[in-house]
């Protein structure tokens, strides 16, 4: 009896799976036709429909990223935005993209939760002639015609800016020597690779004494543990290069617990990345001496791409967002990387209040 029930259930599951499979296949040509129709419709109506599949709302950064999209693609600017929160699940994102295709949007913007597994659904979007713009994380597809453009952060440049700032600051303050440790991010993450690469190059070029390099896995707990250990093996550390704000919080706790002080007049300078709200608040007090931005405001850059595409122009495949560098005090007004100058913003309460995140 039991076996019979199981076999019936299995049959039912197989039949339904087949039906779903067939349904997907037959829908594709129909979408082709309707996509053309929607293009006509949008030209008549004057508004551009954008479908945005967001990862979730796991951090301040992410929330700011969503806000940027919502404010850029507003009704006043001539857009209709369909926003979908995937709650950290790729399945939800795939469903969202399929819905966008069915709703015949003009553009799809995707902030992918993972790198892989996008071929099928992006092919469906391509078949429907809907351009896809990837934001934030990169995707890993064999055929890069599946997406039109990518917008995100240039992690290496962030690192280069921070390193240039440190060298300029050391010159301005006439520091005798720089004994620096690098608390790396999660090994293999694109932010870690870019920021570490820039650090290694700068340390060699400027003759910094690198006394330690260890991963803090982008978390406060690990950052604290690693810093604790480094302080014991090296008494002379005067700069810490943390690859995100959470690690910096942990490092500061460890330094203070060891009876040392942080800040411009203290024993150790702490540098950080991301400029989250909590991070930049520590920059205001000087605990984090320099904080390089990882800009979540992707909206305007995506809008720029869409405008170009609307005008029939070619767009560059990889595009970076503009990112600032924030510091305590005004000892270094600007930094130079590869001949290009970047302004350094002195953090004040107004600067913090004026930021979107």
């Amino acid at each position, binding site marked *: 009896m039991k076996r019979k029930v199981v076999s019936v259930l299995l049959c039912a599951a197989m039949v339904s799976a087949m039906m779903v499979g067939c349904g997907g296949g037959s829908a594709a040509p129909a979408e082709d036709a309707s996509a053309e129709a929607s293009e006509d419709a949008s030209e008549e109506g004057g508004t551009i429909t954008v479908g945005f599949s967001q990862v979730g709302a796991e951090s301040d950064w992410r929330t700011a990223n969503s806000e940027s999209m919502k404010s850029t693609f507003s009704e006043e600017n001539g857009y209709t935005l369909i926003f979908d929160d995937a709650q950290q699940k790729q399945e939800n994102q795939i469903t969202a993209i399929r819905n966008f295709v069915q709703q015949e949007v003009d553009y799809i913007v995707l902030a992918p939760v993972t790198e892989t597994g996008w071929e099928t659904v992006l092919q469906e979007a391509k078949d429907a002639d809907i351009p896809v713009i990837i934001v934030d994380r990169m995707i890993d597809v064999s055929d890069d015609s599946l997406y039109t453009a990518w917008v995100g952060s240039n992690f290496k440049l962030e690192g280069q800016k921070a390193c240039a700032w440190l060298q300029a600051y050391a010159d301005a303050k006439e520091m005798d020597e720089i004994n620096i440790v690098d608390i790396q991010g999660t090994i293999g993450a694109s932010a870690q690779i870019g920021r570490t690469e820039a650090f290694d190059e700068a340390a060699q070029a400027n003759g910094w004494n690198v006394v330690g390099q*260890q991963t803090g896995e982008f978390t406060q*707990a690990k950052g604290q543990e690693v810093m604790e250990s480094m302080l014991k093996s090296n008494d002379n550390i005067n700069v810490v290069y943390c690859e995100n704000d959470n690690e910096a*919080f942990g490092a500061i706790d460890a330094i203070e617990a060891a009876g040392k002080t942080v800040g411009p007049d203290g024993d150790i300078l702490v540098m950080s990345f991301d400029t989250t709200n909590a991070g930049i608040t520590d920059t205001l007090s000087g605990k984090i001496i320099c904080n390089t931005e990882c800009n979540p405001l992707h909206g305007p850059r995506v809008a720029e791409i869409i405008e170009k595409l609307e005008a029939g122009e070619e767009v560059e495949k990889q595009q970076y967002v503009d990112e600032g560098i924030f510091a305590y005090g005004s000892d270094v007004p600007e930094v130079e990387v590869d001949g290009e100058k970047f302004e350094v913003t002195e953090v004040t309460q107004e600067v913090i209040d004026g930021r979107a995140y």
Partner: protein
Amino acid sequence: MEKIKKITSMQLFLPIVCLVAVLLINVITTPGFFKISINNGVLYGYIVDVVNRASELVILAVGMTLVTAASGGQDISVGAVMAVAGAVICQILSGGEVSVNQIANPIILAVIAGVIVAGICGAFNGFLVAKLNIQPMVATLILYTAGRGIAQLITKGQITYIRDESYQVIGGFIKGCPVPTPIFVAIIVVVITMVILKKTALGLYIESVGINGDASRLVGLNSTMIKFLTYVICGVLAGVAGWVASSRIYSADANNIGLNLEMDAILAVALGGNNLGGGKFSLAGSIIGAFTIQALTTTLYAMNVSGDQLPVYKAIVVVVIVVLQSPVFKKFMATQKARKAAAQGGGQ
């Protein structure tokens, strides 16, 4: 000779040798490893770090040992349960805000709630394993995958910060006391568990249920209840560990609190010379195992091994220790010794 044989045949002998061996590496590589000083009014040194950082692992290992002994399986959800407990505690303390500088509710209330929720998670696991007879690994897999999602739900997907000095005490220092508080928490947990196991027959019951559940039932032990109890204890202890871990970083980081710690806890039980198939157990062995793991991590930090190579060295040491303690290897050594003795005897 007899005495040496007696010592080497003790269950705790090999775990202690392993811990000492790991520590001895430091005598050569990091001469300052054993130096302890008072810095900024508190104890300061690598050894202090090892004992301090191992606290959560010790607490988890105690629970894991009991679960392993009674059910012959492991609870792989403890790391996720830690995150749930941390999320509950921080969310109550913050009163629903994302980041607060002053606690909204009394700490004791939040901690009790957090530990109770962790206990409920343990009870859920216990129900599946003891009542429904599901394989422990499969039963606890449910909370292993869902736990962090639940924690995310509680914190609404954000990291909840409690920037209030009073909350940092349990993961930091009590004012005027030079010893890190997590060490006290670990000691209290171990002492209470030891007392319960020694003063009541619970320890004996757990072992007999683990060795043969059916036989224990036939002699009148409620084996279902005993298995269930060990899972509840394991959940409660995971809650305590989660409290310490979240207090260390004064926040509830649902994605990272206790991440992969369940594997370290299982490893600690194994390093302690315990049989992962259940039955007789040694709590002291597991605790030594936990310290060995943390000593290894701290040693590698002190040697400044680069981050991407760290897991390799860890794996090598673990393989060596596990092989040393495996029954086959022990038997091999015993026969070798016997042969040597026989050869010597023949030569006379």
